[in-house]
């Protein structure tokens, strides 16, 4: 009989979410099943539904039925797949996966046959094993008796010798168990051509290579989705019909999943809407004590109506509850994101950005037309975020709250390593390939690398390597926890999505990531940590203010803006990086909205779209904004006709390229996932054609497209920039008006920010503030103020524990080193640590003597401490010579991380090597195009990705920092000096634009040996003291 493909459905296919086994993306599986005309396809990853949302989206787009399932290996060895025909069966399956995963360490699971009792409504497909027949029969009976009547025997044939035995066995078991046999491809890939990749994945999983694995790999390429005509050659057709019949019994779709928010957020007698209104009104009364202005009241009404219409009340209430907890504990927090910039959130205290004052419209960010879930990320002080997380777990319980997953996928670097190992490439070669990836896009460079390693770059193994690396990039490797995206539900969360253990103890993650949640319209609350909030809260505390005082920082202070316009921004949130510092004097921010732009403009999006210079020209009035239509004007007017923000680009796609709301939404999603999964290309033609049709120039259209790609790399929407800009303003205000306090707070919040404590201290000294050294007689754990001067805190002493410092702090002052050891309860190691850092100076004098004295202190016994018996004062007849200035300096850097003495360049500048070198200060007076030589300690080396090969370096001397740009040609000529040196001199040409000065390097000298000469200790100087921060 003629058989249409519709007579078959694949019921047992694993995707690459069965990590290091499946060799196809779930979307590829679905697309292949559709192309082959299958009636349906089940994605049955091993104890996981992590890939089903992607499969679901693909299946919905194509119109093929997706069946949600999972496969399992029980502890007994039995192997089966379970399919979910209904919503409640899905809940059982999800619960089963949760149970199996929660028992085992991250990435593993454990399941007994008795656990199957909870999946009564699932359909069970059992794959008989190869052991002795009676054992197999027994195993089948065990599964069948737990799963109930919906039980099938799954037959998978792969043109292997065992096929005959498999088929015969399945038929015998069918009679003995009274169960039907159903056929499957047993697919681990969508097409046979993925076999090499599947072999590589196997090799990675087994930590071996394809050469060594031998029969550990499958013997052929049969485990893929095959045409039904081929299947008919292999299986009796009833077995194929049976698959279709089973598929017809499955009606569950992921679209049925609905998210229910926790009820306890709303008191009895209130509806969610009424309760949100009540909280909003209470907050508004506090925000506007003299009465709520009419236009604000109007905004509130509009927003509440919109929230009610979209049924987002619970989302706002959940966020409000978390923020209220944080406020009750004096934890500073700040919301950002589309929904955060609403008047409602301002009233609820989620954010301090007054949307009315800032001219931000909630509607701009949340609209019912756009199918975009509301987004509120809340940043908390980074040192205290854990308290908030524990509050959430305590309030909702682990069965109702879990973190979203972050999918860790293969990147180029990891792909090179793993594929290379699987192909037996030399590990040192792989190191080199993985570390310098600029070669990837450069064929000749690539060939050189292989030739150097003795490998023919055109040979088969290199071609295979390159092909496999490209194929594996984007493949999921494992689930990790999202930084802070919580999913909270009304009922058991495990019935919605499986929960598994994260690597971190006491953390659980769901099997879906944020894209999956968004695809299904499930909401998450992001609880993030931000160092600057810690610093601001600490600064406010030093000024005797509560965290809420952040709202009362005087707005729009001209002195603050004047400071920022000079790029005097070390330590200021977001605008302290080198790139931001060169933007500040050009953009010259003079109000809050300028800061919003400042934060957003130095990002890959606007930069790759070449939008920065046009914007600056228009801002300076050198160019008139022009708008092709009123609609475009509405979108771009606030940025002078230049798209800066992600939202503007999306809107532009609608008003200027004719995208529908749905298409624009697709573009936004594709942008977010582009780096990981691709899929942006299909919008390129549409956008550019759409803009050309509407009369835009090709060049502008292509720039907009470049910007979209840039946003894909690092999306930065206005709704986030707006919240960040507020923190920029607050931190800048503190730096401007309370520089000592601000610097202390930054230093007490480390690690955070762009600069090291050494650089922060140098900056504050340059602002005329005295900094005093770490001293056991005067320092506490934290940095603190001593009549206007900053006293270095003992937290800066490398290797000193906080308890030790607090113990010292509580016993100060001490009469000698013995007294310190005894009353401060210090052990020999801790004394050494203090001596190294120079913190014993006031007791012992210089470091050499301090070490001698520290070594001579007898350890205090408990008896003495208890009796407080006075010992004889410490005495020694040895008087050691003091270290040289250079040695002190090296020890400062090494054990304190900063020095208050002279800068190394101040000591070395008189050496002949630096004749003719200008200081960083003198560089400020140089002309554009001038030849110059500068020298300094390398504090930062940055090599932006991409084929350009340019390297940025920052050199520090006794007067400040100089910025160096090294182009590829020079880099090649001075490779060794540039990559290894700690101290260099650079000859080059000054490139100057206003206050922004770079030196384009032409010639480089490595002078690191001079640093070593400071102490005669080459290794110490080279390896430890002057470590530059290298960014690749």
């Amino acid at each position: 009989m003629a058989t249409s493909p519709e007579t078959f459905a694949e019921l047992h296919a694993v995707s690459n979410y069965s990590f290091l086994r499946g060799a196809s993306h779930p979307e590829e599986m679905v697309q292949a099943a559709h192309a082959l005309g299958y009636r349906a396809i089940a994605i049955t990853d091993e104890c996981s539904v992590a890939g089903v949302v992607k499969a679901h989206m693909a299946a919905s787009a194509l119109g093929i039925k997706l069946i949600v399932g999972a496969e399992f290996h029980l502890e007994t060895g039995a192997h089966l797949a379970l399919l979910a025909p209904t919503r409640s069966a899905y809940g059982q399956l999800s619960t089963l996966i949760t149970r199996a995963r929660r028992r085992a360490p991250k990435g593993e699971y454990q399941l007994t046959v008795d656990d199957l009792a909870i999946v009564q409504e699932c359909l069970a497909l059992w794959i008989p094993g190869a052991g002795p027949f009676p054992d197999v029969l027994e195993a089948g009976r065990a599964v069948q008796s737990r799963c109930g009547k919906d039980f099938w025997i799954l037959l998978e044939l792969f043109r292997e010798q065992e096929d005959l035995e498999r088929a015969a066995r399945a038929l015998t078991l069918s009679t003995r168990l009274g169960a039907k046999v159903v056929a499957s491809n047993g697919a681990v890939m969508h097409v046979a051509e993925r076999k090499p990749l599947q072999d590589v994945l196997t090799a990675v999983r087994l930590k071996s290579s394809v050469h060594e694995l031998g029969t550990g790999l499958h013997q052929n390429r049969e485990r893929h989705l095959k045409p039904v005509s081929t299947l008919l050659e292999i299986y009796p057709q009833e077995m194929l019909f049976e698959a279709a019949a089973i598929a017809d019994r499955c009606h569950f779709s992921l679209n049925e999943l609905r998210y229910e928010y926790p009820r306890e957020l709303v008191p009895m007698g209130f509806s969610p809407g009424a309760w949100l209104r009540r909280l909003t009104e209470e907050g508004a009364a506090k925000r506007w004590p003299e009465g709520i202005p009419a236009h604000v009241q109007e905004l509130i009404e509009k927003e509440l109506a919109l929230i009610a219409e979209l049924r987002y009340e619970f989302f706002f209430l959940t966020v409000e509850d978390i923020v209220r907890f944080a406020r009750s504990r004096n934890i500073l927090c700040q919301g950002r994101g589309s929904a955060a910039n609403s008047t409602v959130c301002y009233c609820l205290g989620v954010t301090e950005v007054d949307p009315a004052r800032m001219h931000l419209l909630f509607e701009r960010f949340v609209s019912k037309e756009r199918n975009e879930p509301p987004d509120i990320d809340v940043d908390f002080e980074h040192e205290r975020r854990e308290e908030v997380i524990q509050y959430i777990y305590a309030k909702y319980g682990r069965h109702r709250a879990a973190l979203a997953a972050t999918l860790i996928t293969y990147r180029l670097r990891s792909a090179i390593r793993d594929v290379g190992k699987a192909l037996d490439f030399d590990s040192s070669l792989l190191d080199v390939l993985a570390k310098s990836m600029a070669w990837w896009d450069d064929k000749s460079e690539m060939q050189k690398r292989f030739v150097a390693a003795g490998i023919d770059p055109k040979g088969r193994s290199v071609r295979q390597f390159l092909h496999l690396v490209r194929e594996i990039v984007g493949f999921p490797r494992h689930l990790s926890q999202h930084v802070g995206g919580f999913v909270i539900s009304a009922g058991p969360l495990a019935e919605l999505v499986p929960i598994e253990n994260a690597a971190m103890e006491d953390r659980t993650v769901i099997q879906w990531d944020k894209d999956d949640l968004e695809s299904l319209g499930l909401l998450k609350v992001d609880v993030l940590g931000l160092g600057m909030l810690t610093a601001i809260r600490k600064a406010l505390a030093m000024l005797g203010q509560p965290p809420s005082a952040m709202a009362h920082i005087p707005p729009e202070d001209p002195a603050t803006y004047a400071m920022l316009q000079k790029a005097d921004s070390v330590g200021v949130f977001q605008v302290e990086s080198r790139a931001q510092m060169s933007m500040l004097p050009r953009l010259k921010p003079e109000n809050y909205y300028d800061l919003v732009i400042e934060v957003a403009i130095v990002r890959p999006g606007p930069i790759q779209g070449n939008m920065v210079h046009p914007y600056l020209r228009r801002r300076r009035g050198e160019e008139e904004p022009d708008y092709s239509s009123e609609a475009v004007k509405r979108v771009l007017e606030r940025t002078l006709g230049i798209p800066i923000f992600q939202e503007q680009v999306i809107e532009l796609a609608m008003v200027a390229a004719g995208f529908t709301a749905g298409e624009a939404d697709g573009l936004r999603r594709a942008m977010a996932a582009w780096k990981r999964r691709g899929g942006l290309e299909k919008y390129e033609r549409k956008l550019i054609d759409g803009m050309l049709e509407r009369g835009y120039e090709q060049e502008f259209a292509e720039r907009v497209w470049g910007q979209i790609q840039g946003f894909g790399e690092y999306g930065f929407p206005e709704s986030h920039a707006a919240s960040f800009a507020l923190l920029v303003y607050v931190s800048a205000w503190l730096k401007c008006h309370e520089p000592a306090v601000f610097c202390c707070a930054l230093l007490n919040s480390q690690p955070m920010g762009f600069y090291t404590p050494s650089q922060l201290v140098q900056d504050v000294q340059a602002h005329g503030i005295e900094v005093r050294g770490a001293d056991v007689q005067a320092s506490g754990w934290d940095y603190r103020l001593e009549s206007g001067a900053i006293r270095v805190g003992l937290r800066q002493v490398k290797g000193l524990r906080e308890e030790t410092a607090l113990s010292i702090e509580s016993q100060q002052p001490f009469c000698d080193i013995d007294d310190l050891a005894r009353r401060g309860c210090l052990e020999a190691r801790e004394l050494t640590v203090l001596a190294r850092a120079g913190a014993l100076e006031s007791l012992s004098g210089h470091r050499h003597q301090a070490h001698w004295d520290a070594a001579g202190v007898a350890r205090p016994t408990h008896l003495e401490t208890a009796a407080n018996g006075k010992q004889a004062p410490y005495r020694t007849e040895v008087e050691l010579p003091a270290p040289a200035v250079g040695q002190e300096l090296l020890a400062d850097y090494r054990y304190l991380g900063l020095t208050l003495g002279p800068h190394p360049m101040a000591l070395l500048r008189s050496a002949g090597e630096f004749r003719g070198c200008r200081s960083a200060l003198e560089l400020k007076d140089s002309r554009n195009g001038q030849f110059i030589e500068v020298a300094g300690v390398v504090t930062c080396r940055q090599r932006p990705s991409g084929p350009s090969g340019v390297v940025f370096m920052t050199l520090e001397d006794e007067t400040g920092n100089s910025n160096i740009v090294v182009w590829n040609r020079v880099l090649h000529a001075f490779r060794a000096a540039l990559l290894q040196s700690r101290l260099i001199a650079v000859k080059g040409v000054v490139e100057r634009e206003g206050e922004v000065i770079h030196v384009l390097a032409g010639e480089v000298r490595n002078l690191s040996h001079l640093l070593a000469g400071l102490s005669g200790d080459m290794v110490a100087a080279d390896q430890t003291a002057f470590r530059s921060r290298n960014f690749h």
Partner: protein
Amino acid sequence: MANERWLGVHFPRLKLEVCIRRLTGDAEVPVALIEDGKVLALNAAAAAAGVLPGSSQATAVGICADIVCCPRDASAEDARLSLLAEVAWRFTSHVSLAEPDGLLLEVGRSLRLFGGLAALCKEAGALYRELGHELRLATADTPLAATVLARAGTSSLQAVPLACTHLEPDAIERFANMGVMSLGQVLALPATELGQRFDPELLAYLDRLVGRVPDPQDLLVPTETFASVVHLVSSVQDGNALLFPVRRLAGELASWLASRRLGASEIVWTFTALHGEEASLAVRFARPRSDAGALFDHTRLRFEGFRPPSEVMSVSLRAESLRLLKAVTRPLLPEVPGAGIHGDSAALELVDRLAARLGEDALHGIRVVDDHRPERAWGIRHVRQMHDKGGLSRQGTLPLRPIWLLPAPEPVRRGDFTLLGECERIETGWWDSAVARDYFVATARDGRQCWLFREEKERWFLHGYFA
């Protein structure tokens, strides 16, 4: 002893030199010695290319693409140092190792023999340079002083940096913290205060260093090899007659080995004729042997193809490659092949006997190779390799495969065969030589069962016969 005179020999670049010896030497090639992914040492060419010690291997390769990176081999360094020590016996019998990269020679008694210290040093320096090693020499009254002076390359103990002493790195760092960098500075500090601050070992060390307490050294003892000669009363013509002295020497060797718990994996017989003509016969064993029976039996078997010179006057036996026997007790009774736990042992015994009879080159093993591709699923290896991987491979169950696989598949016509059963598809090996075949069991016209496969485009090949 008052007249002790110690010569310290220090090989500052021993690690690198050992590693370069393994390369076929071209001094122009940049070489880096690698340990834990970091560059430990460099030759001049690598240093000239700008590579620095301590940098990562990846950085080194990044800077100098042609650099040869050798991993460090500590055991080769030890072996080399022992060899260098043995060479020193020509100067004195009092040779000790100053690990990891030096030697100590007590030369007080040898000075006159060599014409004074300077002459001796000159000769030693020339000798070691000839062997490919840089070195520094120093003499002192105590062994420790000689060593540290050689390491430091100075003649003043005061000036020796602490890094060149035997102090623990921790103590050196603590002294550095105090600004104390040289031995002179340490020796100037009051001993009691030093004792309060440092391990008691430190004061003892300083005492030995300056000769306040004696510091006896472990002398190097020559490694033993067995060599024994039997001189015959009259010359022997008949090969079989030679077996008598052979049996005696084998017995001697056996008891010598037994007393040292050693086993020989190779013994060499030398037969010297009256007029000086010599012939040697080397006998190798699958595993180290020490029993007289085995030593003799294997020799006798090899004797059958061996022609000793006529008129043999002396027979000598040397056993040089000796191994310490494992503490496993061997049964005294001869083993029954295939019996019980000694099955593997019996198989090796068989291998030894066959090898002895046929000559090693005639004997090969078949091993099962773990590969889906039939022509790669077995391989030949030389009999000597069989001992390396713990006996003859017996692991892995074989799939249904013909016993006789043709050396290469032969093209055939499909029509000449009747296919039996289902196909088995083998499609793998993409990484070296890909195959894509459907295999069938088939009957040929002559009734023989054979193994066919089909490649793409319906090309058929015969690959083997079943029995």
